[in-house]
């Protein structure tokens, strides 16, 4: 029973903040103002906690780089470990920025209905699930946080209560129940194969299977099961079909979170498990893959992951891009665009997994993270803008929109900046994301991948331009003329747009942060050392002395 250090306590702080906020807002059902105030306070506290994690654990000179927290004082690998390292911190920061924006937005525009008093508790549960998934160091616990996240998002998809929403929610629930079952099967299989679910312990055992008497080959297939589950969450082709309906059904400020945060949980889980945990597993691999001109052979399951991700990423870029061009509403375009953009994140991760060059691998993960950051900011902003347009005009269909630019220049400028960031125009954050992804493909000498990325970029320009022309330019429609645009919502959009510009102009520190995150993702030894899972046999006599 060791006293807990300050850094350790920081690890759990963001989770406790949203947990307490969820409990508090449950009691404030009849006091909308107090509910909003508590939620905002929690949002600010959450932001501060994440900033403290960033600085004291990861970025400050002499910071440890990684900190752990043993929930309930049970030692690893028996108890649940929470781990905050560079990768977790990067993801948390990304989500915190968007989450606070969405929260402020929610205090201004709440869809009506009886469920209103449950909006904020659910919002906090959704944040709790996302935060927990980023911080946990235990595979089963990851499953639990996925479920927490899903429970809240089920309700949000069905929130408006119309027949269309109920239908979307039904499919969403059915698909995710199936995914959860596969996830659970995969987790069970890994436990049966390796005898542990603590990620650090898992990495340690897989790196030296002989010492633990295990046969690592089944792990490759089990990892494939987990990968497909994470691909569903991230919305990669062929698991993209639920995204358009679900994103249309949920309230826009929640869709911003679904696209900006829960999708990133899928990406995070792929990176964390593939590189930190399973990279060390010794499995002979021989896989013909002509696309990437790097040796596709190694002694770990990574090439399988890489090949799958490359194929899924390529499909996503094409399906998302082509689908987005033909949509007839703002959120339809952005939903398909999300599919394509996640493809842009998956491709560098795939290259990172297939290459054997450690420098390129790290660089590719940096590219994926920077692109993910841009996607969270830009797409989050765009979905929030859909919310503004919808609450102002009552519609987001192109047929009923037009001339928004003249009606509200600040709104138009914010959307314009986000669209440019999506396209990848310097000096915005999107430019660096896209530039790095192209650079990775070039360094891997993957000609077909570059062509694919080019096609994807052209499609992005096409649908962004079309969205802009249809809704912001042209003659004003009656709906736009009668609109009353909420200044606070536009303020949130402006701040997010400013963030996109600032990230682009002052890119160096962001790049360094992403670099730290990528190093943390690849440094299995540091991860294992920090968690320090004791050997079950070593503990034999001393364990359970507590109870």
């Amino acid at each position, binding site marked *: 029973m060791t006293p807990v250090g300050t850094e350790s306590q920081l690890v759990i702080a963001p989770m*406790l903040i949203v947990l307490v906020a969820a*409990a508090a807002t*449950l009691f404030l059902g009849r006091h909308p103002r107090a509910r909003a105030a508590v939620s905002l306070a929690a949002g600010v506290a959450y932001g501060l906690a994440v900033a403290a994690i960033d600085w004291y654990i990861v970025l400050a000179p002499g910071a440890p780089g990684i900190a752990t*927290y043993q929930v*309930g004082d049970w030692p690893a690998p028996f108890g649940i470990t929470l781990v905050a390292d560079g990768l977790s911190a990067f993801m948390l920061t990304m989500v915190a920025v968007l989450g606070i924006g969405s929260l402020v937005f929610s205090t201004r525009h709440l869809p009506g209905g009886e469920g209103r008093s449950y909006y904020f508790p659910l919002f906090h549960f959704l944040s709790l699930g996302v935060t927990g998934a980023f911080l946990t160091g235990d595979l089963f616990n990851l499953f639990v946080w996925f479920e927490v996240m899903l429970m809240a998002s089920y309700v949000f998809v069905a929130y408006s209560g119309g027949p269309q929403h109920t239908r979307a929610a039904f499919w969403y629930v059915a698909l995710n129940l199936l995914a959860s079952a596969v996830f659970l099967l995969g987790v069970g299989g890994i436990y049966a194969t390796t005898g542990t679910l603590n990620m650090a312990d898992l990495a340690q055992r897989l790196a030296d299977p002989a010492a633990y008497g295990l046969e690592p080959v089944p792990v490759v297939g089990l990892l494939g099961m987990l990968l497909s589950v994470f691909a569903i969450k991230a919305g990669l082709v062929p698991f993209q079909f639920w995204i358009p309906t679900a994103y249309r059904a949920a309230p826009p400020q929640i869709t911003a979170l679904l696209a900006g945060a829960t999708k990133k949980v899928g990406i995070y889980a792929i990176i964390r498990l593939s590189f930190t945990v399973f990279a060390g597993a010794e499995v002979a691999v021989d896989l013909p893959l002509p696309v990437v001109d790097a040796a596709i052979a190694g002694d770990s399951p990574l090439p399988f992951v890489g090949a799958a991700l490359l194929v899924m990423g390529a499909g996503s870029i094409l399906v998302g891009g082509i689908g987005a061009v033909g949509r007839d509403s703002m959120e339809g375009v952005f939903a398909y665009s999300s599919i394509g953009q996640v493809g842009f994140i998956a491709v560098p991760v795939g290259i990172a997994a297939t290459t054997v060059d450690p420098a390129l691998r790290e660089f590719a993960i940096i590219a994926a993270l920077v692109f993910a950051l841009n996607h969270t900011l830009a797409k989050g902003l765009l979905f929030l803008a859909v919310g503004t347009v919808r609450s102002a005009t009552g519609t987001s269909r192109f047929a009923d929109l037009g001339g928004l630019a003249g009606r509200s220049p600040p709104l138009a400028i914010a959307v314009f900046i986000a669209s440019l960031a999506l396209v990848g125009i310097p000096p915005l954050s999107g430019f660096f994301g896209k530039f790095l992804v192209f650079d990775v493909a070039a360094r891997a000498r993957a000609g077909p991948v570059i062509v694919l990325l080019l096609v994807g970029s052209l499609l992005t320009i096409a649908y962004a331009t079309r969205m802009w022309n249809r809704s912001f330019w042209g003659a004003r429609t009656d709906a736009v003329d009668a609109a009353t645009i909420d200044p606070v919502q536009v303020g949130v959009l402006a701040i997010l747009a400013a963030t996109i510009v600032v990230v682009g102009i002052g890119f160096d520190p962001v790049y360094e942060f992403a670099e730290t995150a990528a190093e943390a993702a690849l440094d299995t030894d540091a991860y294992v050392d920090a968690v320090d899972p004791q050997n079950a046999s070593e503990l034999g006599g001393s364990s359970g002395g507590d109870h």
Partner: protein
Amino acid sequence: MRTTARAIVPIVLVVAISLFVEGHNLPGGGFIGGVLTVTAFGIVYMAFGLDFLERGVLGREVDPGKGPSRDRVVLAYRRLFAYGFAIAVVSGLAPLVFERPFLTQTFVMLEGVPIYDHLEVASALAFDFGVYCVVVGGLLTILSVVGAE
């Protein structure tokens, strides 16, 4: 059905409570105890109808015009859910005051208790009680609202 319910419900409730109480050391706990308690309520609902609790047990008048989610007993279920969640969170936070990690548990042996001789009072019981309330409150809300529709 009603005769069986009269015999079964008390047994189910007793088993539920025993599962709940021994949960920290043996299989059981707040969740499973809660689910079993809800089963008992479910049997009552099926045998005596949805309004039985309001009218028969609590002796209140039921206004048939209101939506099911406005019933006083449903509001009570919702409150139970909220309080249970709060109890669980607070009991998890309590160890932080003693500079122990979140959710750390301990226990006290009470000696010389009549009948039992010694009784183990575990702090995990507080957390479990919270879980129990959440499960009972949540499931009964769903059961009564969806059941009425």
